[in-house]
């Protein structure tokens, strides 16, 4: 993994630094409190000594009243500051949780796009798409379709949870799935399971410049997965764009490899 990946945690370190400053400030408050407590003890000690000399008593009493007023004011000010710091810390803690969640989401999206573009072998790309849909989204039964441009038919090229042969092809623009793909928008139906393989619970059209090249249709989720999160919708977007380009590039690469081999074969024949 690259530096790009590690940089997303820098802000987390920054917030940890702010927390440490909060802790340091609280420690300073405690030291100040201790200093004032000692001061009060000294004053009390002076009071006891003055009690033995009635002439100094009045002077000391005035001094003490002044000191107490000052201490009270100081105490009030510290309490106010402490409340402010606690509120600030609470806000930082909330923000820290948000940023951590954001980091996790970014890590998921980064891993998904990194893996999708890590190979030019179409079978490998399909394997990675399946891994992402199982491991990152939590789908149990789903299929990947690719569009046959000649007759606008979407054929199942990979499936998980059931054999691909059990999932029918579909026509672009026809049926729930075909219409959702033609609309070029990810569609989520309000259910978590469908045993009818023409009616998915989610359809993620794979498209390049708004042109459909295939789709991922999810029919059921893993037992422990209760519904879709904001991250899942981000992953749908990543798959819709990145899986499409990865599959398209791999298909083109495969075709060019085959052509190259054919041409090489001809050249070999000519030079023999």
């Amino acid at each position, binding site marked *: *993994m690259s530096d790009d990946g590690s940089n997303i945690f820098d802000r987390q370190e920054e917030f940890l630094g702010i927390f440490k400053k909060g802790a340091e400030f609280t420690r300073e408050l405690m030291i100040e409190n201790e200093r004032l407590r000692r001061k009060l003890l000294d004053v009390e000690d002076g009071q006891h000594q003055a009690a033995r000399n009635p002439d100094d008593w009045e002077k000391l009493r005035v001094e003490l009243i002044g000191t107490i007023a000052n201490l009270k004011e100081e105490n009030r000010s510290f309490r106010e500051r402490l409340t402010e710091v606690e509120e600030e810390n609470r806000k930082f803690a909330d923000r820290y949780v948000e940023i951590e969640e954001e980091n996790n989401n970014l890590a998921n999206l980064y*891993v998904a796009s990194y893996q999708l573009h890590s190979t030019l072998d179409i079978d490998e790309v399909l394997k990675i798409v399946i*891994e992402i849909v199982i491991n990152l*989204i*939590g789908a149990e039964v789903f299929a990947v379709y690719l569009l046959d441009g000649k007759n606008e038919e979407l054929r199942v090229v990979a499936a998980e949870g059931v054999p691909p042969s059990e999932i029918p092809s579909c026509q672009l623009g026809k049926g729930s799935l075909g219409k959702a793909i033609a609309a070029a928008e990810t569609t989520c139906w309000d259910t978590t399971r469908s045993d009818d393989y023409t009616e998915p619970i989610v359809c993620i059209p794979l498209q390049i410049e708004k042109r459909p090249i295939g789709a991922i249709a999810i029919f059921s989720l893993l037992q422990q997965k209760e519904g879709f999160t904001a991250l899942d919708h981000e992953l749908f977007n990543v798959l819709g764009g990145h899986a499409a380009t990865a599959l398209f590039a791999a298909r083109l690469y495969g075709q060019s490899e085959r052509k190259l081999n054919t041409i090489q074969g001809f050249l070999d024949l000519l030079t023999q």
Partner: protein
Amino acid sequence: MEKRRILIVEDSPTMRQLLVFALRRLKDVEIIEAQDGMDGLRKVSSDHFDLALIDINMPVMDGLKLISLIRGDDALKEIPIVVITTEGAKEDRERALSLGANEYLTKPIQANKVLSVARGLLKID
């Protein structure tokens, strides 16, 4: 401070990368990856590890077999093990825990959960 060594045994490169991403946030850890149960067994037998995260469904040797081999080996049996799997059923969890797994996490994994479990088993903040 000596680095804690964590072994990830998982056949999916996507999951491995995601787990590495999450665990890299722990300070002073070294993360080693294995791509199936057999590779995991080789690595865990040849070096010291403080924690192992093991997937269940893997080619060559599955995670449950690997766990039972680790727990059956006097030199390895103390390694804390976290199972990571798609199987969320209660009986799957009980089976893994009865074989000696310390924790059981289901996919899709949450990085926070992985970190919290790893911190707990490694006894670090």
